[in-house]
């Protein structure tokens, strides 16, 4: 099994505070990995480091053995990292379909001039893009909403659309930041199925941040626990659930 994502000794310091330090992780193809930890532990910061929003103070990030140092967010998207956001960031005033086809932008080749003159390549690529987007929406039972404004969707569908939009970039690694946040148990159940479906169908590596323990323990094969920017435990769900350090730092807090 090949290594899709590998982080070694990742560290970032904000004004003297190490938000993340000595962070190591490996995520393989076809694997769902979980990243958990109490509020403010540095989980989202890890995602921002992976996607190039923040520059690490030190450490190495490799994607399929390629060093990502110095690459912008845009370049990392092209390299195969896609993400969703803790606070939904959809293109609200665009249709659901356009939210998805926008992700094909760099794979489409027609120029501005070809678009303005509506030359054959414009029609061909637009048709393909629409079909691909509708197919993708179909996989997630959302094709009926294709022409709705993304901002008008119910909350659960918005979260789902964000995942579809990320998937449409054809990533090797999918980062999901609290995908179940704000969902009711039924929606969460549904989402778990969806995430499993993504792994089985697209054979990509998935790293997800989540507070919902039933979700994390249910679908993640390996879990990394962060606390105050430090990795305090790493292992299978069973190992994590038994780990006394984790129970003290994280699960223990919930029992109080």
């Amino acid at each position, binding site marked *: 099994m090949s290594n899709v994502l590998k982080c070694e000794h990742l560290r970032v310091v904000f004004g003297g505070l190490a938000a993340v330090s000595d962070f190591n992780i490996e995520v393989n193809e076809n694997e769902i990995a979980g990243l958990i930890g109490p509020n403010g532990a540095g989980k989202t910061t890890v995602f921002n480091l992976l996607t190039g929003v923040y520059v690490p103070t030190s450490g190495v990030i490799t994607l399929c053995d390629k060093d990502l140092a110095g690459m912008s*967010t845009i370049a990392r998207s092209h390299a195969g990292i896609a993400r969703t956001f803790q606070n939904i960031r959809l*293109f609200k005033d665009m249709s659901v379909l356009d939210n998805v086809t926008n992700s*094909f*932008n760099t794979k489409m080749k027609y120029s*501005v001039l070809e678009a303005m003159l509506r030359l054959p390549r414009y029609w061909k690529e*637009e048709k393909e893009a629409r079909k691909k987007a509708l197919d993708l929406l179909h996989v997630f039972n959302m094709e009926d909403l294709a022409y709705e404004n993304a901002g008008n969707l119910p909350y659960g569908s918005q979260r789902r659309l964000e995942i579809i939009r990320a998937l449409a970039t054809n990533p090797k690694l999918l980062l999901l930041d609290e995908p179940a946040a704000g969902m009711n148990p039924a929606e969460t159940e549904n989402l778990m199925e969806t995430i499993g479906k993504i792994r089985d169908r697209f054979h990509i590596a998935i790293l997800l941040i989540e507070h919902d323990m039933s979700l994390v323990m249910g679908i993640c094969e390996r879990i990394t626990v962060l606390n105050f920017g430090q990795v305090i435990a790493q292992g299978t769900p069973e190992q994590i659930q038994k780990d006394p350090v984790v129970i003290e730092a994280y699960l223990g807090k919930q029992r109080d």
Partner: protein
Amino acid sequence: MRKTRISTPIRYLINTALIVVLWVLLTVVISASGLKGEYYRGIMITIGINIILATSLNIVCGYLGQLPLGHAGFMAVGAYSGAIFMKSTPAAALLRAGNSAAVIPYLIIAVVIAAVVAGLFGLLIGIPALRLKGDYLAIITLGFGEIIRVVLTNIDSVLGFKVTYGASGLARIPKFTNFNVMYVFTVLILFLIHVFMKSRHGRAVLSIRDNEIASESVGINTTFYKTLAFVFSAMLAGVAGCLYAGYLGSLYPSTFKFMKSIEILVMVVLGGMGSMLGSIISAVVLTALPELLRSFSDYRMVVYSLALVLMMLFRPKGLMGTYDFSMGDTLERIIDRIRFGGKSRKEVQG
């Protein structure tokens, strides 16, 4: 979802027919109005120029979601470059001889020159301004507009020979902008904006407005697309300027003051940022109203500001919001209504 689907060629045909019908209508109005026809023609040409200015500003202001304050600067650049070129051609003599068809090639070259020169200035300003995050564009374009005006006023004394004729004005520009020219260019530019926005490039621009961080996360080159939209907008403002020069026959730097940029901005904001139809409607209304109410023309700015305040209070998203009109879609909806009555979407599908 609509059940009726009108195919793309039919949509194009319908739109073309409507454009021709409108042209016939306006031409009939002009020729049937006798002496007043000339006056109406002038208003219509001014409306055309303002439609181009407003819809082109709407690209940056509405679709891209940035705030430029120097649109008049690009208009000025286009106006002067187009006019100076036209003066160097035999166009004036041809027009005097009544041979307006022979002027068309010169006219096209002038428009292209205006677009290219304005576009180059757009590039020069856009690249540094749009790479920064925040409201730098407003400040930089504001400065640009004023600098252009000052340069146009004083460049002759720096160069030592006459180019712009400074504050006394560039006169005797061949008057190549007649009603038909204006009509064709207005339609053409509206079409170009439409097809641009309905492409992958237009989608990228809209996605930047809606969420820049998310756009980057799906690989959209935000700096490139911001610059592209800005340059496109500047080019069209240049074309508007060139047609303006060819309509008036003389140019003064004072025309392109800061207030001119604000006037165009008001049209876009009132119409609804991000709505081409809104920009068109407010360009028509805000051009025609002051003309028709001549005696109030001193109060134009008062009316503008009142309209703005009222709009902000009652319709903060502008007249049309971000709604964009499509003849084809509207027809589909109407036909649906006729075929299926007032039934809801689900019933229609079931």
